[in-house]
């Protein structure tokens, strides 16, 4: 590669980073403000709270205090109702977006975008920020023309209209949905400094739909029917083979997401929900469920979504997503504001059940402090954790480690790499490390860096 090329990539990378920075500056000003004050409150001399000191660092800063006179919002009327019949975020949040890395895929129809986890709060992903993954572009399907068929090894092949499906008893559940390639770019080392890139191929929303077991029983499974092969109505006609044990456990056919109809990007009008399992199995634009005696051995379960091991063998029929966790604040999108008290926040999830514990290390895994949960702890859903940290300003290595209710403890990266190699592509579910640079009077700019052991 020529030097010019290297330079060009460096510029691209810098642009991508500064984009993320702007996200922080504009989008997360409120969070940053909170931290600024807590920092001041725990001054280095350890004398405890001192109101004067708390305010002092900003006393001379007009940009902090000059809004204490009535601004434009107090002097004129705002806009009236129905200005936006479908509401949108404040224009000041416009940097909070799904983003993609154009070098990942040759076109935008078979591509992926990542959710800006660094800008999210709680455990629900807004519909407009839900990550996207298409294998053949997004179809715009008229629900009146859409059907779901259940056929194959069943007693009564059935065809359902969307109205038929809504007549069934409904179920609403909050689940995470994660592309098994989440974090794939990090197998051989770190690439980019943002949690959007390292963990953004996932989202967590409330789905409403019909239990798949209800639908399958309605059609009547023949004894030799052991697998279902769901299929999408899009150009990809995506299929996976799912064993009856998973289909009858807790799957459902969803028509709603966060209280409204599914978005087109997520499978409008219906998609399969396979809680805890690879998002690739959550077939969108679901049109057909074939009950079968054997798995279909289709492309998405043989050529792709299988994991190459160092000895040249490959793992197939990988279904459940392992427990995983990540610190979203502070993370490389943010800058430390100086020594003092911080409330480390992040997300933990498990494809096999509820999160039981999250521990956070500040010293690269030597010692751990248990975090508490600030959200409901739900089955196969994101769980938001938080833990207090007094930062003395020295270099620190932040890691989070989840233990789920099955007793599985999230492993460190060197252990996972030694077992699975680096050519897996999928299921990179080991811990990540954020290196907090030493403060040194702000010399290092409060940098937080994605590093890998």
């Amino acid at each position, binding site marked *: *590669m020529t030097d010019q090329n*290297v330079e*060009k*990539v*460096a510029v691209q990378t810098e642009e991508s980073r500064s984009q993320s920075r702007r996200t922080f500056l504009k989008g997360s000003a409120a969070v940053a403000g909170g931290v600024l004050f807590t920092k001041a409150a725990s001054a280095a001399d350890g004398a405890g709270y001192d109101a004067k000191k708390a305010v002092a660092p900003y006393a001379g800063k007009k940009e902090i205090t000059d809004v204490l006179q009535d601004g434009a919002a107090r002097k004129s009327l705002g806009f009236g109702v129905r200005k936006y019949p479908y509401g949108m975020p404040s224009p000041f949040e416009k940097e909070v977006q799904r983003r993609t890395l154009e070098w*990942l*895929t*040759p076109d935008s129809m078979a591509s992926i975008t990542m959710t800006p986890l660094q800008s999210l709060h709680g455990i629900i992903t807004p519909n407009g920020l839900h990550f996207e993954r298409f294998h*053949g572009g997004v179809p715009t399907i008229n629900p009146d023309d859409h059907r779901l*068929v*259940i*056929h194959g090894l069943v007693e009564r092949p059935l*065809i*359902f209209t969307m109205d038929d499906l809504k*007549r069934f008893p409904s179920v609403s559940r909050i689940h995470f949905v994660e592309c098994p390639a989440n974090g794939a770019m990090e197998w*051989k*080392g*770190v690439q*980019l400094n943002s949690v959007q890139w390292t963990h953004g191929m996932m989202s967590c929303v409330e789905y409403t739909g019909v239990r798949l*077991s209800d639908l*399958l*029983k*309605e059609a009547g499974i023949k004894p030799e029917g052991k697998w279902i092969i769901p299929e999408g109505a899009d150009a*990809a*006609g995506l*299929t996976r083979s799912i064993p009856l*044990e*998973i289909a*009858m*456990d807790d799957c459902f056919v969803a028509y709603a997401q966060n209280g409204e109809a599914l978005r087109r990007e997520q499978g409008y009008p219906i998609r399969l929900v396979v809680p805890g399992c690879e998002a690739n199995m959550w077939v969108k634009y679901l*049109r*057909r469920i074939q009950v079968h005696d*054997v798995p*279909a*051995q289709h*492309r998405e379960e*043989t*050529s792709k979504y299988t994991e*190459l091991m*160092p*000895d040249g*063998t*490959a793992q*197939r*029929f990988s279904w459940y997503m392992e427990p995983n966790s990540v610190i979203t604040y502070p993370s490389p999108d943010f800058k430390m504001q100086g020594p003092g008290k911080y409330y480390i926040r992040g997300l933990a999830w498990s494809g*096999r059940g509820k999160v039981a514990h999250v*521990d956070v290390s500040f010293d690269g*895994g*030597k*010692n751990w402090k248990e975090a508490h949960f600030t959200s409901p702890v739900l089955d196969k859903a994101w769980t938001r954790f938080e833990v207090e940290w007094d930062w003395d300003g020295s270099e620190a*290595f932040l890691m989070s480690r989840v233990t789920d209710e*099955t*007793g*599985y*403890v999230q492993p460190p990266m060197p252990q996972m*790499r030694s*077992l699975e190699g*680096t050519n897996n592509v999928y299921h990179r579910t080991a811990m990540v490390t954020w290196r907090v640079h030493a403060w040194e009077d702000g010399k290092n700019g409060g940098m937080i860096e994605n590093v*890998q*052991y």
Partner: protein
Amino acid sequence: MFNTKKTFVVAAVATLFAGSASAMSGSSDGAAGDKIDGKYAANYAEIIREADGKYLDKAVIEAILGKDAAHGRDGLEGKLDPANPYSFEVDDSIDGGNHGNAQCKVPAAFVEVHDSVNANFYNDGDFVARGFGTPISEASMAKWNITVDGDGKGLPDPSVGMTVEEGAKVYVQFCGMCHGEFGEGAKGYLPLAVEENLVTSDFYAPAPMKAVGNYWPYATTLFDYIRRTMPFWTPNAPHIGDAGYMGMTGYILQSNYVPMDDEGTELEDDTFFNSEVLMKMNKYMKNQGNFFCDHRPVIHNERCMTNCPDTQVGDGKGDIHNYRQARKLPDGTPQYNVPQRMHEDPPGVGHAGM
């Protein structure tokens, strides 16, 4: 899970160890003493319930698989044994089909899943059909049912096909511009025929390219997939038809030097390629013996809180300053995936595309 009875896991498991130890020294009538194939605790479900459902807890796994339960790749052999309660493998993985349509299952030790399936399905005696939806005949599904499975069910009649040479023409017309005339890849799209070794000797070297010949376990997948989705811009094209898709499949298999018998006979240009030839080749896909069912969890660590062992700290040897960093490019240090970003290599995350 399991009505949250606060069992103290360690104590419960310790008791179970004692139980199985005594059972091993003689009596074979106690449930705790029975072993599946003489290797695994037959009362695994009981052990798991006693441990409050923590079936992936290190102590629970060792209570069921034995103290020597390996934690790494070395432990895979046991996991590939269908009798192992933690195995995803199925007893009859060779089902007598054309070449062994491999199956996997949810491991028996995932007792919570099986309890749920029993409640929702096998033991659901109260279910009454609601009568929603409209019954249809299987025949009316002919247009939609495009699935071809690993046994070849769903393939077109053997009269449908064309010679490999004709197939090559169709391929060049509809596929070559993205996948290369000889399957070598183009414009960033996946190559279909490469001869790369899949074994990793250097964890930081570029990932091997996975293509039909060196990676795909089934030939049936190829016909199913390209008829289902290709050409990318006009999928499932009627002007190509089953015969055209069959021809493309033949040409791609020929480009990958897939044999069709024990003698290694390869496709000739004038071979009429149809479902029968395809099924012959389905038995000789080079990589088909190298797949195994999901073996996770292989890793089962302790939840250590203070002064953790070096294997769990930093670089795995206790050094927290031995880390890799991203983007050192202006300094001249290489960046990962640079060829992808420069459009010199196919897009992807160190592998052949998404």
